[in-house]
């Protein structure tokens, strides 16, 4: 893999986190379906709940400078249990990768090119991502700067153009959903978009200055939460009660832009935005899985595994969800619970064990 030893700056990691989290933007429609006009509240509570957990990821990485998640697991849990925990983490990343390939294929197949088979999108996207992974994490981090700026600019631009269509009475009545539904959405928001940045613990060893890690991670997540909030507020204000009808709310909201019958069809900007953010998210997950597997089998180079793992992921993406209904049901009921052990239980537990055992120690002296 090229540039494997290249270092990334704290600012680059912030943009990488923004793009990575924005890769989950398709989830917003799912959230809208559950808490409807109150989605913005669940979004905020999801972010607030995720902050202590994100800090636990950052402090874990800071405690073990120059080590990635697999090495940290080995130190904390010992060689055998550490390896088992790492295998579970790699399977989690592999499945996330497959689900995200499925997401992009579903989106393109549903909205842009309905006649084209999903397999075509998955294979083409996988080949492009394989090339990016081969170039290394520093190249992906540099690309994330562009995608993050593009995402922020697109959200601001479309929101300004939609001001005329907004009706803030659409936020009423408030507190309509049940407590269980608020809890469900907060849990989904915490475990899926925000909690998934646990994958970045596989690349924090490439950071130039890991002392800035907690601040960088919270900043990146905070900016992403603000972007999500802006999207949810815009979509709810524009679409109102019809927000639950559409399977892709942002796309539908931006479709309503029509300035003097001249500035129309802006929804392609949303499609480009999704593609760019998902590209970064998929590249990071792909990189993390490939380097993790090669580290687990103690291979000197991870490059030969890129295409083999890629083809396994393509098949997994094809067989994971039979239909969009099945995919949505997975999102509502099971996805967050499946991610909980990896995002909410193991990282704080690892940090606690490291503190109790006073790890890492080199002959009794902390590094």
């Amino acid at each position: 893999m090229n540039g494997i030893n290249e270092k990334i700056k704290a600012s680059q990691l912030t943009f990488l986190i923004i793009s990575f989290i924005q890769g989950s933007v398709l989830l917003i429609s799912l959230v809208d379906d559950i808490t409807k006009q109150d989605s913005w509240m669940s979004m905020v509570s999801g972010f607030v709940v995720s902050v202590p957990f994100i800090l636990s990821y950052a402090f874990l990485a800071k405690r073990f400078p120059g080590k990635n998640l697999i090495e940290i697991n080995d130190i904390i849990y010992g060689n055998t249990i550490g390896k088992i925990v790492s295998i579970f983490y790699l399977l989690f990343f592999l499945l996330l990768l497959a689900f995200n390939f499925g997401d992009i294929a579903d989106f393109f197949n549903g909205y842009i090119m309905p006649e084209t088979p999903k397999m075509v999108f998955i294979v083409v996207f996988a080949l492009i991502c394989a090339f990016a992974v081969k170039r290394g994490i520093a190249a992906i981090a540099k690309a994330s700067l562009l995608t993050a700026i593009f995402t922020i600019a697109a959200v601001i631009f479309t929101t300004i153009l939609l001001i005329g269509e907004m009706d803030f009475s659409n936020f009423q009545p408030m507190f309509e959903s049940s407590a269980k539904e608020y809890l469900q959405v907060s849990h989904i928001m915490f475990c899926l978009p925000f909690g998934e940045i646990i994958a970045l613990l596989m690349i924090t060893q490439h950071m130039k200055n890991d002392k800035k890690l907690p601040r960088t991670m919270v900043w990146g997540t905070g900016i992403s939460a603000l972007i999500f909030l802006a999207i949810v507020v815009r979509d709810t204000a524009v679409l109102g009660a019809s927000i639950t009808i559409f399977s892709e709310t942002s796309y539908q909201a931006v479709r309503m832009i029509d300035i003097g019958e001249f500035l129309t069809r802006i929804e392609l900007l949303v499609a480009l935005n999704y593609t760019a953010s998902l590209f970064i998210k998929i590249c990071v997950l792909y990189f993390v899985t490939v380097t993790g597997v090669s580290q687990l089998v103690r291979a000197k180079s991870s490059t030969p595994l890129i295409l083999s793992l890629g083809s396994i992921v393509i098949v997994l993406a094809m067989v994971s969800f039979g239909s969009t209904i099945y995919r949505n049901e997975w999102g509502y009921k099971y996805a967050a619970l499946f991610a909980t052990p990896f995002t909410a239980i193991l990282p704080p537990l690892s940090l606690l064990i490291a503190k109790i055992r006073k790890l890492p120690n080199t002959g009794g002296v902390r590094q």
Partner: protein
Amino acid sequence: MIILLIIAFAAIGLVEVRSLIHKKYWRELICFCVFFAFSFVICILQASGVKLPSPTQGIRTFLQTIHLHF
């Protein structure tokens, strides 16, 4: 489709194996062969229309068994 897959896999295998043998990376060669064989088999099965088990179905069944879902 299957012929296309075989050609693609043959090309990947040829390039990677040659490079690994040239560098004398024997451990990497073994790992590559294992992953390559597995991916080749599941790709061929998928292309021939065999219904492969879905990982989400397994996770779903497990979570339902322990009554853990929204």
